[in-house]
């Protein structure tokens, strides 16, 4: 593996991390804490939306994030030919 290739693989990895961690931050700290009051004026069924993000929604999004990360990384590994 050339050093350029290695650097490109790492850069793609870090870009993916930044995007996923941005979403991680927004759904928990953003929707669940910072913006909870305005979001609570919207109802999701019987849930105020901010409350739902804090106690349910953020957890579901966390799950999606990890599986998206795992499958994207598998693709990235193959693309750069570093898979096991």
């Amino acid at each position, binding site marked *: *593996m050339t050093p350029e290739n*290695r650097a490109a*693989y*790492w850069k793609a*990895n870090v870009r993916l*991390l930044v995007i*996923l*961690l941005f979403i*991680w931050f927004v759904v*928990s*700290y953003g929707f*669940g*804490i*910072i913006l*909870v*009051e305005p979001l*609570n004026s919207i109802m*999701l*069924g*019987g*849930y*105020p939306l901010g*409350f*739902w993000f*804090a*106690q*349910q929604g*953020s*957890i*579901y999004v*966390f*799950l999606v*994030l*990890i*599986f998206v*990360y*795992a499958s994207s*990384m*598998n693709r990235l*590994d193959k693309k750069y030919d*570093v*898979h*096991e």
Partner: protein
Amino acid sequence: MSNLDIWTYAIVGTTFALYIGIAIWARASTTGEFYVAGKGVHPVANGMATAADWMSAASFISMAGMIAFEGYGASVFLMGWTGGYVLLALLLAPYLRKFGKFTVPEFIGDRYYSKAARIVAVICLILASITYVIGQMKGIGVAFSRFLETSYDLGLYIGMGIVAVYAVLGGMKGITYTQIAQYVVLILAYTIPAIFISLILTGNPVPQIGLGGHYAPSDGAMTLLGKLDQVVTELGFKQYTTQVMGSYLNMFAYTLSLMIGTAGLPHVIIRFFTVPKVSDARYSAGWALVFIAILYTTAPAVGAMARMNFTDTLMKQKETATEQSGLAGFEPQPYDSLPAWFKNWQTTGLLAWEDKNHDGLVQYYDDTNPETAAQAEPLGWKGNEMVKVDNDIMVLANPEIARLPAWVIALVVAGGLAAALSTAAGLLLAISSAISHDLLKGVFMPGISEKAELNAGRVSMIFAILVAGYLGLHPPGFAAGTVAIAFGLAASSIFPVLMMGIFMKKMNRAGAIAGMLSGITVTLLYVFQHKGIFFIPGTEFLMPQWGMGENWFFGISPNAFGAVGALVNFIAAFIVRAVTAAPPEHIQHLVEDVRVPRGAGEAVGH
């Protein structure tokens, strides 16, 4: 023996026989099997075991009770103890698996080319793990003594014996398979009562949907959360869906501290060394979170429904009540007519009633709220008579409050024990590997044989059980603060150096050591300042005259301070790194190698 006792003995006995049977069947014979289960564990199985490892008595017994009485404020536990898995999966797990060693201090020692760094990491690890395990031992003792009707001490000895048998014999291989069985027991024990209660209260069997559903007794006129908000505010309590824990800033720091503490707790991190490949480590964190999320998304429903049932049992709302009737819209119930669970829990001292106005009725409201207190006057109420309602009883009492059958109640007991035992075993393994592998083999006796190392691991595990058991017998004021400091310590010491070790090629030995020491010191000082030096009562040293009163640092509570400690760790590491020599060439190559999955072979210890 009552019907409930028979069910409890039968279910607890059967599950324990199962755990011990599995431990004997999967006995470890090599250090590889002992520490990391020979790296042959499938990601789904590993995820399930990680979930059991992770969810302790605190998750199983305490959390829903905290949610019941803290409402929205308790969201910090829900987000904090799940969001940490995102950090683990994205920032640590695959790289540490690629690195291919047995323990967290081993990574730190190699990455920072320093035995001193390794020893500092071992100390942080042991401090965090042992404080955590004392809480589990205490939980085991309480659960045994309460339900097998023995003394607390005897309950604790029984628990220590059982932990010793399967943790010492089985090592990681035994623990992993036992934990899968424990996960199944604890998740059934948690969800079955929740499904029953959700059906009764909302007509929907899925608690996650039921919590957002309609309150069945109101014939669909109100949502469950709307009803709960209305009932608790009329009784003078804070509105359930909006009550804040401290301040929003405190909640932010609290959540962050629990998240990075999760990603820095060694007994969770080593789970990702047990899978065959780097890509498996990524998926394994996801699977662990799937199994954890089943409990964590059920917990808010358990909490809210328990609060609803509990309040409704004590204070019946009158048919004629309107939104303006306030306290007068409730009818306190006569003590003599209350169900048996009320009196059972009274005998434990965790629930206490005092008939202040001598009318034989139970008045339950918030008398610290001036508006409500004013409404109580004309009714002849002399204050809140529920002088003690301990959060921790809610999960155990919940099935009784909802009048579920005896076998469901017995199952909850078995679930609580499974949660406490599995976590205790995982922590003990982390402690024993830190001592035998990192201290003995890594630093003091490099020539030790595999067999001797394995035995040293077992001896140190027994030693750890005795220490934790002793401290559990005579807890030196350890309580809720114990769990908080375990997370704070992990967050402020281990997580930052692991992350910098992978993402910053130029982070060096001096920076890492300075970071760990300053992070852990700042956190310890703030916690000790509030809760006493090593939690010994009377040694608190808050200094209001110097502007250091309760939660003096921007209103952040000591439980949430790990986030600040971690920040200090990062900053100290950056500053020290800037003025010291860069790491040697081969270390920078090592970091580059860790970043690429190919070539992850069997883990080797050295």
